[in-house]
């Protein structure tokens, strides 16, 4: 129910939203949880395993119980914490894990079967028969246990990733964080202040504390206003720092539009930030912990701090007659706040015996414990146990406090372990766990407001020093400085199930059972019971579970230790982390200058690395790709074909030592290459295997242009930089990748020169441009380069122009080729043409083959050293028994060959030990009239003519193949020179 005159909500702005089909009213500033409580809705969810009715436990992101689904259709989002989701007009929410309805859930029958479903039940119960697990047990268990469901539809929301940099990152905007930010900002540091909540101020917004004589929330607002006016400060609300990483990197999730409901038209739903901070102040605060007692999960039982937050921040009393139970002074503060707000307090139960309370105006029980709770879907009563015995108290809300746990999580993300502090019965951060981080305030176990304000200032002064900035004098405001005293109370003794991990339904009994079954290590206990493994990661339950385990195993809590804290601190959607990488955003797309024209010609485009290249250019009447491909092969063999080869890597190499460098990276000589000539080159890795191949043209004494394969353009560039910077820094040579500067087209076929002479300013002939010549030309009025090289084995050229002329030149070349009975050809034809000539690609130089294997052993010059030469000379890499490159033709009844198939002696069984080699490339050769292939066979060159058995186990194909030389067309090479 709403309490008049309380809360920081805007009562002039009513908001309506839906929960489970019913419309409710709230105000701007409400969360779903506060608004539902205001409407006296306490039942908000069903538990994971036993489907027990559950209400809200907390008022923050650590909430284990009140998980809801928001939105509909593709925008449905499961497992949203009702304590975090702000209401907005039109918000639609639903409860989860209940059928047919939240108040009548059939699966609640699980709760009756609880004796059979204890810790580790699925390891024990569903063992036999073995095959029943996957088919029967698991699906049933999965269906019964669960959280919200995904929509199953494509995610239509927009997410962003963003980067930020600062001198000082302040995490948490409570009293410590605000003072740290103010101090550092006044000291001139670039500050980012990050707050998970929509409203900065932390507990100051949830308590009735005063700072500098004014209400805490007003003081906080003043500090925020000051910071907002400073240019060196960035304030980030609704942003949770999710992880601490190496080198001062932090991940943070910003909820950008969950609170507005704007989700269409490119409105960003969430932004995942990567923040680089030189120094960090962690002021993440502390989380209150519950007390375990029988039925402590009844809706209406919540943390005392949450009750105060609902009362003071949202003007809501979660009950009409509230009982308060605790082991520390916060319980008293809760009762006082409630009474001051006019809410009836049914009783105050303090587990400590020696506490005196005077003039309270409500029943006070000291040295007493709550040992049971009555009611079903709502709390109706609690049973308290005093020295005099047990008695029931009528209440609809119990505010409980077992003390506070500092939020040490981020300090443990780089393998740090927290330290047990017996004074506050909690773990605190271990100093130095994260380099360049200072921990301040209640996050460090300091619980008074004054202590937090002071710690914030001190942390900022230390940070300013570390950043090399002058310290500033900042007065610490006046605030309460009450000592924090508690006596440990983890679990109230008694029968029945007392809950620790609300979200995963883990009880005190389960932890004890784990200890009995010798799962005594905290990591084993966790996995056996699933304690702390739910979406809240046991934020409110882990320490209590450790305490119970410590007790059950006769150890202390520090000896028992904690489980490992890992990022993220709160659940982060994969969509946010991978923002922008959906669909086409997954990888950049690279397009050649001929792309538009190729698509217009109907070519299916295939990916080659990041590039898109035309597969083939279909003509009317062709119904299969093979028809198109065969036709295009015919262009090149019989007239002229045009193909965009711009995707090959092009590296411009210049400098006095350019020739020396090329001699060192290629196996063969390039210093002897004449200006105006091109040479084929082979590159090895230092381990002696082939890295890449391609042509390299010498344009001047100190100027070469190297081409690489499309796939290896990046790695080869990196390799050249490595050789020049790391091995020979004295050599004067530099590299520029010019792949995208030049559009380059192969013009191949017997009529290629005729075609070119129609567009070149100065016609070429066999004298001026023999095979492997290169140089500058003017083509259609544009300065370009012409290379007489051939991948197809025909009389061929490659012509290059600056990329801005690429599209025009491609059009002109294709048009002229078509007039001459040829035309454009795509990747399929290019592949057939090169296989017919036995030219290798990365299908053959796949990383495990040597120059010897591909029949190029003689290309490794013995006149000089080169990368890979020494290791290539190892005995095992020159062994004649190695698999070496051969050609393959089908000779049996089966005419199809497949790449990836293996080769066996005729009559040998096709098993691994009999393996003689494998097929790397196959194509249907229109020229030969059958399938042809390239492959590697042991002692291959000695076995030409031999018939072998080709078996493709994967595709279930077998054929007889004859080994031959790997050149099927024009073996003498006369055509290229003609």
């Amino acid at each position: 129910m709403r309490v008049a005159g309380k809360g920081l909500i805007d009562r002039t702005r009513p908001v309506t939203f839906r929960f489970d089909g019913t419309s409710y009213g709230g105000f701007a500033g409400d969360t779903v949880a506060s608004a539902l409580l205001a409407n006296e809705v306490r039942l908000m969810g069903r538990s994971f395993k036993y489907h027990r009715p559950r209400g809200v436990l907390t008022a923050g992101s650590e909430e284990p119980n009140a998980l809801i689904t928001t939105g509909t259709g593709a925008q449905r989002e499961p497992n949203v914490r009702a304590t975090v989701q702000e209401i907005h007009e039109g918000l639609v929410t639903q409860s989860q894990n209940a059928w047919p309805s939240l108040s009548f859930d059939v699966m609640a029958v699980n709760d009756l079967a609880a004796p059979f479903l204890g810790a580790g039940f699925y390891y024990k119960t569903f063992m036999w028969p073995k095959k029943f697990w996957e088919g029967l047990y698991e699906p049933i268990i999965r269906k019964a246990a669960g959280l919200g469901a995904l929509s199953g539809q494509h995610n239509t929301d927009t997410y962003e990733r963003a980067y930020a940099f600062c001198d000082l990152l302040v995490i948490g905007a409570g009293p410590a964080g605000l003072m740290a930010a103010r101090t550092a900002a006044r000291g001139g540091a670039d500050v980012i202040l990050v707050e998970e909540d929509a409203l900065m101020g932390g507990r100051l917004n949830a308590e009735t504390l005063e700072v500098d004589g004014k209400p805490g929330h007003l003081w906080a607002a003043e500090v925020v206003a000051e910071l907002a006016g400073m240019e060196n400060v960035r304030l980030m609300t609704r942003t949770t720092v999710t992880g601490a990483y190496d080198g001062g990197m932090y991940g943070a999730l910003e909820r950008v539009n969950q609170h507005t409901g704007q989700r269409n038209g490119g409105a960003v739903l969430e932004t995942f930030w990567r923040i680089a901070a030189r120094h960090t102040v962690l002021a993440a605060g502390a989380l209150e912990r519950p007390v375990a007692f029988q039925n402590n999960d009844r809706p209406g039982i919540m943390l005392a701090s949450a009750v105060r937050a609902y009362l003071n921040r949202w003007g809501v009393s979660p009950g009409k007659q509230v009982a308060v139970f605790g082991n520390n002074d916060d319980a008293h503060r809760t009762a006082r706040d409630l009474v001051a707000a006019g809410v009836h307090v049914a009783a105050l139960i303090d587990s400590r015996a020696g506490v005196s309370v005077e003039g309270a105006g409500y029943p006070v029980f000291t040295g007493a414990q709550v040992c049971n709770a009555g009611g079903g879907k709502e709390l109706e009563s609690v049973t308290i146990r005093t020295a005099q015995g047990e008695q029931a108290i009528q209440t609809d809300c119990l505010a409980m406090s077992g003390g506070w746990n500092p939020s040490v999580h981020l300090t443990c993300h780089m393998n740090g372990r927290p330290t047990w502090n017996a004074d506050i019965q909690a773990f605190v951060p271990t100093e130095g766990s994260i380099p360049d981080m200072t921990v301040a305030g209640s996050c460090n176990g300091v619980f008074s407001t004054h202590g937090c304000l002071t710690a914030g200032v001190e942390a900022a002064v230390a940070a300013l020093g570390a950043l090399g900035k002058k310290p500033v004098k900042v007065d610490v405001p006046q605030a309460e400085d009450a000592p924090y005293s508690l006596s440990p109370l983890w679990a109230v003794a008694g029968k029945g199930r007392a809950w620790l991990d609300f979200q995963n339904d883990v009880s005190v009994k389960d932890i004890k059972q784990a200890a009995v079954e010798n799962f005594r290590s905290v990591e084993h206990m966790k996995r056996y019971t699933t304690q702390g493994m739910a979406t809240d990661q046991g934020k409110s339950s882990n320490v209590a579970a450790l305490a119970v385990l410590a007790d059950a195993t006769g150890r202390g809590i520090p000896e028992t230790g904690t489980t490992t804290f890992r990022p993220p601190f709160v659940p982060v959607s994969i969509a946010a982390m991978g923002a922008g990488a959906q669909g086409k955003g997954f990888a950049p797309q690279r397009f050649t200058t001929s792309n538009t024209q190729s698509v217009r010609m109907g070519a299916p485009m295939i990916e080659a690395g990041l590039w898109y290249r035309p597969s083939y250019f279909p003509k009317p009447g062709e119904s299969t790709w093979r028809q198109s491909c065969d036709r295009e092969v015919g262009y090149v063999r019989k007239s002229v074909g045009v193909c965009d080869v711009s995707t090959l890597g092009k590296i411009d190499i210049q400098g006095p030592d350019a020739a020396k460098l090329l001699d060192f990276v290629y196996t063969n000589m390039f210093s002897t290459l004449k200006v105006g000539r091109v040479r084929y080159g082979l590159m090895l890795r230092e381990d002696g295997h082939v890295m890449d191949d391609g042509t390299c043209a010498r344009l001047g004494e100190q100027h070469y242009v190297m081409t690489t394969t499309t796939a290896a353009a990046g790695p080869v560039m990196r390799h050249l930089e490595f050789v020049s910077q790391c091995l020979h820094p004295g050599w004067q040579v530099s590299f520029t990748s010019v792949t995208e500067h030049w559009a380059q087209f192969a013009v191949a076929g017997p009529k290629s020169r005729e075609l070119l002479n129609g567009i070149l300013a100065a016609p070429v002939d066999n004298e001026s441009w023999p095979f492997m010549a290169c140089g500058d030309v003017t083509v259609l009025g544009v300065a370009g380069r012409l290379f007489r090289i051939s991948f197809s084995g025909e009389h061929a050229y490659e012509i290059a122009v600056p990329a801005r002329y690429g599209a025009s030149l491609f059009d002109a070349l294709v048009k002229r080729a078509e007039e001459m009975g040829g035309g454009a050809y795509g990747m399929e034809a290019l592949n057939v043409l090169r296989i017919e000539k036995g030219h290798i690609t990365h299908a053959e130089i796949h990383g495990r083959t040597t120059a010897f294997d591909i029949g190029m052993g003689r290309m490794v010059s013995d006149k000089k050293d080169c990368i890979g030469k020494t290791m290539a000379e190892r005995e095992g890499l020159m062994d004649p028994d190695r698999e070496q490159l051969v050609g393959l033709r089908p000779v049996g009844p089966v005419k199809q060959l497949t790449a990836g198939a293996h080769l066996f002696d005729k009559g040998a069984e096709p098993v691994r030990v009999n393996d003689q080699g494998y097929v790397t490339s196959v194509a249907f050769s229109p020229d030969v009239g059958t399938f042809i292939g390239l492959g590697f066979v042991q002692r291959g060159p000695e076995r030409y003519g031999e018939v072998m058995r080709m078996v493709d186990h994967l595709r279930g194909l077998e054929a007889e193949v004859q080994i031959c030389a790997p050149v099927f067309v024009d073996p003498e090479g006369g055509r290229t020179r003609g």
Partner: protein
Amino acid sequence: MRIDCPICGSRDRREYYYQGAAVALERPAPDAGDAAWENYVHLRENPAGETRDLWHHEGGCGAWVVVTRNTVTHGISKVELAVDVTGARR
């Protein structure tokens, strides 16, 4: 993780390509023998503590850098240009 490029300044590690141990800088002479070459190409230390790596600032200035870092703490203690390291040795 961030690496201080001597040329560009502090940059996110995603701008860099990781190569491996800085042993790659010490290429043996062709006739140095099998052991030296095996050590150069194949054998690598796997220390719990300080290690020296080669990284390429591929998304930045293109410099190869030698990064001295600690495999236990992930702390980076030194970043040098490979040209300086190799140049100083000769």
